[in-house]
């Protein structure tokens, strides 16, 4: 199994490290052809406007939609969550528009309001240290979406079938349990294929 990390901009090496900690090979994906070699894809944190523009420029919108249509799992953190959402508050156009959620960008405020906290996540035994950096929030979800965690009653982790999103950065700590969760999603997908 190989997991790809979309490497147009953002915290790519941190995700590669976290996936490797979970015992699986991870590679940076810069070109659409490279998607053929991976069974799961992480869209990392970074600036969603930058990542969105570069995705359009290099044909990633269609390529990742096809990747998703094949049932291959995708995990978006922070900017990756924004990029996966069907609706972005205050913007007419979404990016990949794959996941039935509405997001608000920079929902906690500016950098001085960025924070870290302990978070309970459904499916993971003990709390996870979550780092929120100019983080987005999920303000509403469709009925296919399962809410995995909330912070102060706001949705910060969610899953819709093969799509997983977090508004915080699990890749910035040594705790790789959410990455392990994603790897298990890929294993389940592979199991369903064989």
């Amino acid at each position, binding site marked *: 199994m190989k997991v790809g990390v979309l*490497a*147009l*901009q*953002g*915290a*790519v*090496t*941190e995700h590669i490290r976290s996936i490797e900690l979970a015992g699986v090979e991870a590679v940076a994906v*810069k070109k659409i052809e490279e998607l053929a070699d991976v069974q799961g894809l992480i869209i990392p*944190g*970074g*600036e969603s*406007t*930058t990542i969105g*523009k*570069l995705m359009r*420029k290099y044909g990633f919108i269609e390529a990742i939609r096809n990747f998703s249509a094949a049932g291959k799992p995708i995990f978006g953190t*922070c*900017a990756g969550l924004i990029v996966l959402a069907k609706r972005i508050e205050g913007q007419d156009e979404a990016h990949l528009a794959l996941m039935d959620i509405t997001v608000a*960008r*920079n929902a906690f405020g*500016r*950098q*001085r*309001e*960025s*924070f*870290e*906290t302990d978070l309970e996540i459904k499916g993971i035994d003990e709390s996870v240290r979550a*780092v*929120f*950096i*100019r983080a987005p929030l999920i303000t509403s979800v469709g009925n296919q979406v399962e809410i995995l965690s909330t912070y102060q009653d706001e949705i910060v982790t969610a899953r819709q079938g093969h799509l997983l999103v977090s508004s915080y*950065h699990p890749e*910035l*700590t040594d705790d790789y349990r959410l990455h392990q969760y994603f790897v298990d999603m890929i294993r389940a997908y592979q199991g369903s294929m064989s």
Partner: protein
Amino acid sequence: METGTSRVKRGMAEMQKGGVIMDVMNAEQAKIAEAAGATAVMALERVPSDIRAAGGVARMADPTIVEEVMKVVSIPVMAKSRIGHFVEAKVLESLGVDYLDESEVLTPADEVFHIDKWDFTVPFVCGAKDLGEALRRIGEGASMIRTKGEPGTGNIVEAVRHMRQINGQIRKVQNMSKDELYAEAKNLGVNYDLLLEVQQLGKLPVVNFAAGGVATPADAALMMHLGADGVFVGSGIFKSEYPEKFARAIVEATTHFRDYKLIAEVSKNLGAPMKGIEISSLKPSERMSDRGW
């Protein structure tokens, strides 16, 4: 819930990796930068090449400009304070600026002490010419490092020198025995534990960007090859003939720094880049990279 932790401050810089941070002087330029794919903007009253031309004392920007820029873009906004001028830094923090640059581009306000950057919730980026400077700034609380280069010259040679210097020194440190490392900490004037961390990581414990002289897409790609995590472009964009096109080209060359065909493509018909300055023609007093220590 904790704000302003090292992880939150350094993590913010991690999210900028592979990106281009652009100097802007007003709301209109900020919008152009954001539309071109900048990961952040640096709000300034004057870009470095204008500061050079104007001479005199360069200070923090008028808060009106900073607020105007913050209002029109959704990407992070950075701003510069003078070296040692912690009140300028506190003022900028109070405005809600996302990242502070204690910068040699402005006239230093203190010739002995840099700002105690641990005392801020908002993270700092600082310039460095070598590993000693980088680790002293990190010791003072900087969450991101950039090469000093020679700002406002459009000449990449100093940024190259500083990036090679820092990474060469890191490679040297990696091969040191423990007793050599103690002596090296003393030579460099840095904290031993920080130097030990560099030895173990094989890199700085924070993100390291290139800055000070990036004037073309190929310059940006060169710095990425030399190990930069991303690029600051100061005067290069809005002093070029077609800023919008130029900004987009730099963003693409930074992402695809190994794809030479693509760099050739985006470099076509860019018009005149900013006019450069030969470093040796600068008087010692005109060299911004000698400010700070």
